[in-house]
């Protein structure tokens, strides 16, 4: 990939990230939420992975052989958050703490966890496919 694509993707990446984070955090007020935010940020990463040969992207991820185990475990942490939420809520601790600032009870927390989950999954899949 020649220089133009590399530089533009490098410049563009932070804005995509910002957009994704905004959508994730405001899931309970504005449209979008966990999944769309995850998709947005994942496309940001995909942009980088495709623009750069994996050589340069390598420094974004840890060492080569750790990548696939790390990716798997990365997913796990996030699923644990979600299943914790699910299990915790199963005990019907319905303490509806009306966080004034967030005006959301429990959903924003799960939105962010879901978004992280989707990002890790898609990024690992893209990375595996590109590296192949």
């Amino acid at each position, binding site marked *: 990939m020649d220089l133009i694509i590399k530089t533009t993707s490098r410049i563009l990446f932070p804005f995509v990230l910002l957009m994704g984070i905004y959508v994730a955090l405001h899931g309970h*007020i*504005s*449209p979008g939420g966990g*999944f769309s935010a995850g998709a947005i940020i994942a496309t940001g990463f995909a942009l980088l992975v495709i623009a750069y040969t994996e050589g340069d992207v390598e420094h974004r991820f840890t060492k080569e052989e750790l990548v696939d185990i790390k990716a798997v475990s990365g997913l796990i942490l996030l699923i644990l958050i979600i299943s914790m939420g699910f299990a915790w809520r199963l005990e019907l601790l319905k303490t509806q703490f009306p966080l004034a600032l967030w005006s959301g009870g429990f959903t924003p927390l799960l939105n962010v966890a879901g978004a992280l989950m*989707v990002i890790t*999954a*898609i990024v690992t*899949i893209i990375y*595996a*496919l590109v590296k*192949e």
Partner: protein
Amino acid sequence: MIEYLIAMLAVLLGIYAVAFKDNLIKKVLGLSIISNGIHLFLISIGYRTNGGIPILKDMDITSFAQLAVDPLPQAFVLTSIVINLSVTAVALSMIILVYRHFGTLDASRIRELRG
């Protein structure tokens, strides 16, 4: 009634692609066409004539309930999109290796070559 037809046509197109196209990648594309057709069908089931998006902006609850579109199929579509994504991801990674092993993506030829 006509509005649902388009969704049905998409599903049928997808089925045609999966059943009759030989190239594996076309089959996987057919799968996502079926899936998108179903999503269109789901959303159009939940539609309400000139209904607004189901997000409570600056309305009181009762008029919001009369105006907003049905949110339940949208939740199903969200789930189904992610499922479709994961199935396509697994399918594509398999196709990469099938191509490496068999040298071709033609489903009928693969069946002969598997020996």
